[in-house]
């Protein structure tokens, strides 16, 4: 069954990545640019609304509208592979930075609690962070092997708890500022040596004025890492897709604005300067919890709560990074960039387990290499985030001219001059990103070196893999979507999975004749109606059929198209392949077995609609065991026949 998720679930998955940055962004940015960090984090969070709009426009054009797909459409395969490689760097680091940060928070809390519990231990924060990060990554590896629906359940629960934590923190911190009084963070920038990077050696590049703002903005940009996940989960979002994406985007924006920006401001306003970075640089929210007004035991309890939720959301970010990276690699594999072996489905869960294994393997290697240093990871992290956004925005902008058909959503700020629409809003977003990314090349040495090496290696891997794949498939079929087939002697299994009041069976044969499925998907009420998409493999003779459970090329092509249409509409579809010796018998048997109240056909090239209906009526009568009424529909361009029997 192809099923879809609500916008709340989609928002929760993305937020696990995006909102979790609240736990480490303040510390990382302040170490680079000084106490003015919250202003820039706020700026980045506001800017993320524009990035959300870019993603919405790309998703309105392509259901699988991640960076790779959009850049490829606009600028060709090479740049698409390059942008996908940069994005992979982002995803590979998202997991480690989140889980290592969670480990840092947890070790800080445990070290605070041990004396109260009369335990004479002291955990080394870095070693413990590595241990915890590996364990959390392994846990979410297993969740993803089981499938996204499983993991979106977890993400939703994590975000519910984070909401409670965020509300408690904002109220408590607000009360603290009201009681003690507070001063907003200064706007003046004080870059560290590491924060200036190679720019310190460029005599004419002074970190003041606009240049300083761009440098600081670049250091803060990783606060919106996770927006790409919006595109990756879009294919899973239920109908109405763009509307639900808009809702998810709004939830994400409000949430990250409130949580990430607010706690960054409160951290500078409440935690004393003397301990803010030295003691709490890697676990700023713990520092905030321990610095609010109230008795020590209450603050300790608050820290427990903050850390508990932090561990969950940060570990959840590892999940999102696996989901996102898996999505990107799947698009590459579908496009023939990755060798087919990677697309093999897990026997039981139907997930692309080899890709998940690769992603998790790289994340664990990163965790071990960074030795628990969150700042190091944060420094490297921004490379993939900003360059994937640059490529994406440039591609969406170019598609305005290349692909002029109307979109369901467009980035605002368009001016029409002499019949040509100029995307001023998109151009502004691109300009900000490009200038920031270029500046980051100078100021973020770790990011530039590690990001360039990783991107080059992955780009090389994609190029090599694509060539190898081309040789393998020379003269053969292009790769299609992979499907997990479950075998059954009857349809009891399918019947058990569908439980809505109405059931529609759509019979398919030709991958190029899916007009009727498209029309049914357009009007189907997903809440009340199950849609079974049916095709039959016809074999002659009456002997026992002994078919291997594999799809042939045409069936794969057919179901790949079904999957595309289902994803585009966001409506649940149950695909069914039946082996039979008579097509009408197979359709009737399947429709009656699933309790279909409507059976829909396309217009046949071989049979008249009357002949189709006549044969179906005969077969239906000869097999019917109840008096359940049924509607037969034949749909084609300019043709619609419906008969109630």
């Amino acid at each position: 069954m192809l099923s879809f998720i609500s916008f709340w679930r989609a928002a929760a998955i993305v937020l696990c990545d995006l909102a979790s940055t609240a736990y480490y962004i303040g510390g990382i940015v302040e170490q680079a640019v000084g106490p003015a960090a919250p202003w820039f984090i706020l700026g980045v969070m506001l800017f993320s609304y524009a990035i959300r709009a870019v993603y919405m426009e790309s998703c309105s054009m392509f259901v699988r509208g991640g960076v790779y797909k959009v850049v490829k459409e606009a600028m060709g395969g090479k740049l698409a592979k390059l942008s996908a490689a940069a994005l992979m760097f982002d995803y590979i680091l998202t997991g480690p930075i989140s889980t290592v940060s969670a480990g840092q928070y947890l070790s800080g809390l445990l070290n605070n609690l041990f004396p109260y519990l009369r335990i004479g231990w002291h955990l080394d924060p870095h070693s413990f962070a590595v241990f915890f990060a590996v364990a959390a990554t392994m846990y979410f590896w297993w969740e993803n092997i089981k499938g996204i629906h499983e993991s979106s359940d977890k993400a939703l629960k994590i975000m519910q708890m984070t909401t409670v934590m965020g509300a408690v923190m904002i109220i408590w911190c607000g009360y603290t500022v009201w009681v003690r009084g507070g001063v907003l963070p200064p706007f003046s920038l004080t870059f560290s040596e590491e924060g200036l990077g190679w720019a310190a050696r460029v005599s004419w590049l002074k970190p003041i004025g606009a240049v300083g703002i761009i440098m600081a903005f670049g250091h803060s940009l990783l606060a919106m890492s996770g927006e790409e996940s919006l595109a990756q989960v879009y294919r899973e979002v239920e109908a109405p897709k763009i509307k639900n994406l808009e809702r998810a985007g709004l939830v994400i924006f409000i949430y990250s604005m409130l949580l990430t920006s607010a706690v960054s401001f409160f951290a500078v306003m409440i935690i004393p300067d003397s301990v803010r970075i030295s003691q709490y640089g890697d676990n700023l929210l713990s520092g905030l919890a321990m610095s609010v007004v109230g008795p020590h035991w209450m603050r300790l309890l608050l820290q427990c709560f903050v850390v508990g939720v932090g561990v969950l959301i940060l570990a959840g970010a590892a999940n999102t990074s696996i989901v996102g990276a898996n999505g990107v690699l799947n698009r590459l594999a579908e496009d023939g960039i990755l060798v087919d072996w990677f697309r093999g489905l897990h026997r039981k869960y139907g997930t692309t387990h080899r890709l998940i294994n690769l992603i998790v393997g790289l994340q664990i290697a990163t965790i071990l290499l960074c030795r628990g240093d969150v700042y190091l990871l944060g420094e490297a992290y921004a490379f993939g985030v900003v360059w994937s956004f640059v490529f994406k925005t440039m591609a969406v902008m170019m598609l305005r001219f290349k692909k002029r058909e109307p979109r369901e959503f467009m980035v605002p700020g368009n001016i029409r001059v002499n019949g040509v629409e100029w995307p001023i809003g998109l151009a502004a977003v691109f300009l900000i990103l490009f200038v920031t990314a270029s500046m980051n090349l100078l100021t973020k040495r770790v990011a530039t070196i590690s990001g360039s090496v990783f991107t080059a290696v992955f780009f090389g891997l994609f190029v090599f893999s694509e060539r190898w794949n081309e040789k393998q498939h020379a003269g053969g079929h292009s790769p299609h979507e992979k499907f997990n087939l479950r075998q059954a002697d009857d349809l009891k299994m399918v019947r058990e999975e569908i439980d809505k009041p109405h059931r529609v069976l759509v019979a398919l044969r030709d991958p190029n004749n899916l007009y009727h499925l498209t029309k049914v998907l357009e009007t189907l009420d997903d809440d009340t109606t199950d849609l079974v998409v049916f095709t039959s493999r016809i074999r002659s003779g009456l002997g026992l059929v002994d078919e291997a459970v594999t799809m042939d090329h045409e069936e794969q092509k057919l179901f790949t198209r079904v999957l595309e249409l289902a994803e585009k509409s966001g409506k649940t579809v149950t695909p069914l392949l039946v082996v039979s010796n008579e097509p009408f018998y197979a359709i009737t048997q399947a429709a009656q077995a699933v309790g279909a109240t409507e059976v829909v056909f396309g217009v046949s090239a071989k049979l008249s609609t009357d002949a189709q209906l006549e044969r179906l009526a005969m077969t239906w009568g000869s097999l019917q065991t109840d008096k359940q009424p049924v509607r037969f529909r034949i749909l084609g361009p300019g043709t619609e026949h419906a008969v109630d029997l």
Partner: protein
Amino acid sequence: MSWFQKKSPEPAAEGPKTTPPARAAKGLKVSTILAEDTILFPSEGQEKSAVLQTLAAAVCGKAGIADWASFLAKVQEREQGISTTLDTGLSLPHARMDGIATILAGMAILKKPIPDPKQTDLTIRVMFLFFSPNKQEAFPLHLQLLRGVSSLFQAALIDQLTASSGPAAALELVKKLEA
């Protein structure tokens, strides 16, 4: 993925025969469009085309249609298309005709099954021929009759019909099942 086979009808069980519940066409009883003189018991050894010809002549004759050959030609043309024989042993030739206002029907009961020339794995035990008005508004009724007849003429009824003594007894069996 699942497997469905269209199977040959199983031989009738010995002893008392059970009759499936009647499922006639909506608002139309099959027994009301049949008459004793349109229920035939053709002699053995005839091919499907010969049985069809005899039955078409009888059905048209009962309705006072002299040009029964054009009716036969239309149904033969339809028979060239997708099969009208079901694996229950029912052959259901039909055609939509201009110039008639009601459904005309007849039935041939074959004591000895004959092979279907189009589908050699199937045999015909009962042939139910009908003509319906060639009007758009009559098409749903045409389809309902196809569904109703194929639903009614299951293996058990066909066994009883082939064992029946003559047209009156056969008609009585159909009436009884539809009652």
